[in-house]
């Protein structure tokens, strides 16, 4: 997917993560986390895998993690990427179907 604009998903509440996606060259990933020492590598792996599944090749991705589980991290990355790639709720409601079980896993 092509990141065309800047979009954000998620919050800074405990157990959540706030993910911001912007246009970029290659994947530029920055991660800040309240559990960085214990889960930094896992967080990075999850974010990168999610981006790969979504076929995002060029984007600046910023993750501020507050102890989110993997399922939440994925959801927030997807939320930000789809929003930044032209899948607004209006577009979705107009019939642009999301790839549940495909690029979203």
């Amino acid at each position, binding site marked *: 997917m092509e990141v065309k604009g800047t979009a954000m998903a998620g919050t800074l509440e405990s157990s959540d993560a706030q993910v911001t996606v912007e246009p970029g060259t290659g994947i530029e990933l920055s991660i800040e986390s309240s*559990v*960085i*020492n214990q*889960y930094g590598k896992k967080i990075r792996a999850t974010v990168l895998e999610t981006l790969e599944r979504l076929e995002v090749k060029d984007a600046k991705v910023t993750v501020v993690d507050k102890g989110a589980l993997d399922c939440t991290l994925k959801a927030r990355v997807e939320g930000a990427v789809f929003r930044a790639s032209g899948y607004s709720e209006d577009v979705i409601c107009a019939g642009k179907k999301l790839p549940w079980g495909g690029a979203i896993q």
Partner: protein
Amino acid sequence: MINAVGRDIPEKVLQDTGMQVFQGAYARHNQTYKKAAPTVRGIVDPKESKMVDSIAEVLKKCGIKDGMTISFHHHFREGDYVVNMVMEEIHKMGIKDITICASSLGKAHNPIVPMIEDGTIVGIQSSGVRGKIGEAISTGKLKGYAIMRSHGGRVRAIEEGDVHIDIAFIGAPTCDCYGNMRAVGGKSDCGVLSYAVADAMYADKVVAITDTLVPYPNLPASISQVYVDYVVKVDEIGNPAKIATGAAKPTTDVRKIMMAEYCTQFVINTPYFKDGFTYQTGVGGASIASTISLGKIMKERGIKMGLGLGGIAGPMCKLLEEGLIEKLVDTQDFDLTAIESVAKNPNHYEITASEYANPMNKGAYVNQLDFVILASLEVDVNFNCNVVVDSNGMITGAQGGHPDTAAGAKCTIVIAPLLQGRTPAICTNVTTVTTPGETVDVVITDYGIAINPRRQDLIEAMKDVKLPFKTIEELRDIAYSIVGEPDPVEFGDRVVGIIEGRDGTIMDVVREIKPYEFD
């Protein structure tokens, strides 16, 4: 050298400190030693006044100089002004290389961090530290080792002479001109002065600092005039709003209530739950909730608690008033209800920290505990607990009476929610051991309860009890299945802190944290 909880203690630390590694919670039983003693200046002339006008002057009178060890108590908790007040004067005088030996330090003492950085303070000995001091230690700013001691371990260290206090500064809510100190009656009531008694008895110089000077004699005194060199009156020794809060509202968090309910069910099904049983609990939401639910069952069954021990909060005082507790024995007060109770209720007694928990006196109160209910940041599959270092490796808590009560009680129960955000409370290896697993009998989580396999008697007692029992490994596996297995925290090489066992041996060391790297 590997110690009895499997921690590798670097030779350098053993050489630098001359300390031994931890050899087991009861390894020093029966050992004899000669107590340390202070150097005392006799006050023979009745014309000598103990009153001194300022902190600066009293420092001069006490002969403050580079390299001294000074001490403080933490009965004013996050409302304390005394530490900062004294350190500011010492800093102004340009004194260096001070070691602070405090019963505990908190966020209120963040202002001393620059003095750590500039070498005014080179040593910290405390139950624990929070906030910026913890960060300063964990990032390697303190020149010497920070030594974390339990409440009982601190008194032991003083009485055995591991630490010698040159000057003790004792904040006193009320004091008379000759040094009789009480914890009640002033602007900054804190209930008791238990932690400061050893300082008064073993420091060379003892300074009482008060904001409420009362007519002589101030009786009954928590600390007697016979130990006190000087008395200084200042405007304020603390912020009453932060010394004692109003009684906390009982929690409505269902998870905590559920763990409290498990705890109560466990307690009442042990053989120790009978008339006259002895009990200590903390001030966390689950602990308070379990005190309340236990109270109900005591009333129903007509069982009374003989002794309620420890840091005291409102709910225990309420049980005392209702006649469900015979005697409350107190070393610290957490709220206004407790302060009022110790001042007024004849069955609510103040004791010293030595009486409370010193492992090397001739038997502390903790040795008589049937139950203690504790919390913990982490518990590992060997039941070792960590209450000092957070999961990012930062020093952020205090030992308090955790290892003391755990070692003393017949049934030590630790309550911890299985997950705090993504951090699992039950893990393979705690980041730092503060309380050895051999003294921890039961762990209660929201996902189930694990009994230490060393306690086959408790496992037997629970065999028909309907509670969600699991092994500690099962609890860990559930946690990991939800949040993933955590990577061990990567530290730098330098040792910045020592977790001292209550008997004076090394339980564990804390290393400098290092910036996280992905590869």
